[in-house]
């Protein structure tokens, strides 16, 4: 399973390295969302600093939808999904591989967006450790849930419109917990961030486990 996961993740990341769709489209889109939020909240810095953690995670959620759609589109070509299915790769491995590739791309995006939040919104980091831990677990959860719903919607013609509608409400806990954890880490209010990090861990664990357990059913359902 792990070897298959590494193979699939390597394949997806190699495709990304050669096509640069995430780099040239998804990441700039995330930055654009940050800019739009700044326009909506006005030139005053205070509300932006207050809202920075939440806006960051909303931007990440939107970008997750795009990254997942890209990850599915890579395999939407002639018989690629069937090829993957008959290749003998463990479905759980395929799931983990695709989730890992999405997660890696999201982490890169988050690094960039963090810079954006710090520069554009004037937020200041109080605890890098808390920032990093919560980001890693939130990303794992987003990548897992995104891969599940992406696989589910892979064979549909209405995938582009259906995926955000299915995925975004499910990831609401990540938005809540990520925002609260980042509020603490960025010093924008709130006290204990630990329960929120635990919630992120639970979300990631549940969706990774579901994805691995139901990988076969998911592949057949697409």
């Amino acid at each position: 399973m792990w070897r298959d996961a590494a193979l699939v993740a390597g394949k997806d990341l190699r495709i990304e390295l050669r096509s640069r769709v995430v780099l040239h489209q998804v990441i700039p889109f995330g930055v654009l969302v940050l800019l739009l939020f700044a326009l909506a909240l006005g030139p005053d810095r205070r509300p932006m600093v207050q809202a920075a953690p939440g806006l960051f995670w909303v931007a990440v959620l939107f970008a997750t939808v795009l990254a997942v759609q890209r990850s599915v589109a890579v395999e939407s070509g002639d018989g690629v999904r069937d090829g993957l299915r008959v290749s003998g790769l463990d479905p759980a491995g395929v799931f983990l591989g695709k989730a890992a590739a999405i997660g890696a791309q999201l982490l890169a995006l988050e690094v960039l967006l963090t810079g954006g939040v710090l520069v554009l919104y004037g937020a200041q980091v109080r605890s890098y450790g808390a920032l990093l831990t919560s980001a890693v677990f939130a990303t794992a959860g987003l990548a897992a849930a995104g891969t599940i719903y992406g696989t589910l919607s892979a064979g549909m013609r209405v995938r582009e419109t259906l995926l955000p509608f299915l995925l975004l409400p499910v990831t609401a806990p990540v938005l809540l917990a990520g925002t609260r954890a980042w509020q603490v880490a960025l010093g924008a209010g709130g006290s204990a961030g630990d329960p929120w990090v635990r919630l992120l861990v639970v979300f990631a664990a549940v969706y990774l486990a579901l994805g691995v357990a139901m990988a076969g059913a998911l592949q057949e359902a697409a």
Partner: protein
Amino acid sequence: MTGVPGVDAPVVPGVDAPVVHDVDAPMARGVDAPVAHDVAMPGAPRPWGPVATWTVRAMGVAAVVCTALTVWLGLWVTPPDAVQHDLVRLVYLHPPIAWVALYLAFGTAGLASVLWLWPRTRSALWDRLAAAAVEVGTVFTALTLVTGSIWGRPTWGVWWAWDARLTSTALLLVLQLGYLALRRVPGDPDTRARRCAVAALVTAADVPIVHFSVVWWRTLHQQATVLNANLSPTIHGSMAWTLLLGFVAVTLAFGWMLAVRYRIEALSAAAEEAELGAALAERRAEGLAVGSGAAPAGGPDTALLHGALATAGQPQATDAEALCPDAGHPVAVESDAGQPAAVRLGSAAAERAQ
């Protein structure tokens, strides 16, 4: 076989006589004949028996009676509350609806999805039940939000508060709408069933997480009144009974709606199959007619039809429309005047051919 050599007419169970070009065979049904529960369909699994029909009707009547009683008790018999006055009467409606929406409907849908995914219990029944439960449950979730909002305006002073239960119920509604959207995506029934069952389970796993995250996020909703820690009702006697009756009424209404929705689901699946069967039989008949030319088994009228079809080139599209009205009555081949459709078609096709 309906008497035409070489055509195995009843292709699909549910279509008992797709007699397209056999004028001697009795036309089984008129245009109005419903493909319904009280019509015997040999060889087809009947989606609905008479006992079930009566049970569901009884349930519907019971739901209406209980609701009427609840309205009477709730509006006239029970006393107003000391604090909330007449507003408290919403308690006979809002919690029962919420109970149905959040537990009964969701539980039914989740259980049915698991039973579909489990290979030993896999049956189209569970898929339809899950679909019906989510659809009816969505209505009840929306009603929960509406009644809660109506209650919240005078007591809290706002239509909507970002309170834990409201927020998680709203998220639940969106999740249910997502499931319904997924169900509308076209696909063959088996794929759709699998897709929806998987989606239901994956989404159901999210519900407790959403619940806890939102509870931590914020809480100002009043605690449950009837089912508190030691299970002793803390409200007045007649009010408690009315509330109990409210629960029974809304649960019965849910059961009735669920059964009716299930039946619609089952019947539309049967109708789809029947249409497919009729279309297949028609194509085969055409192929046979064009292939063999004259001398079919059905007598002079059929000969006319076959000859016309052979000479007219491709009149299939219009003939198919005439033969197969899309309302799910694949055997409705009798014309208005009581004249066998094949004859009418034959002359129509002959006219076109000239």
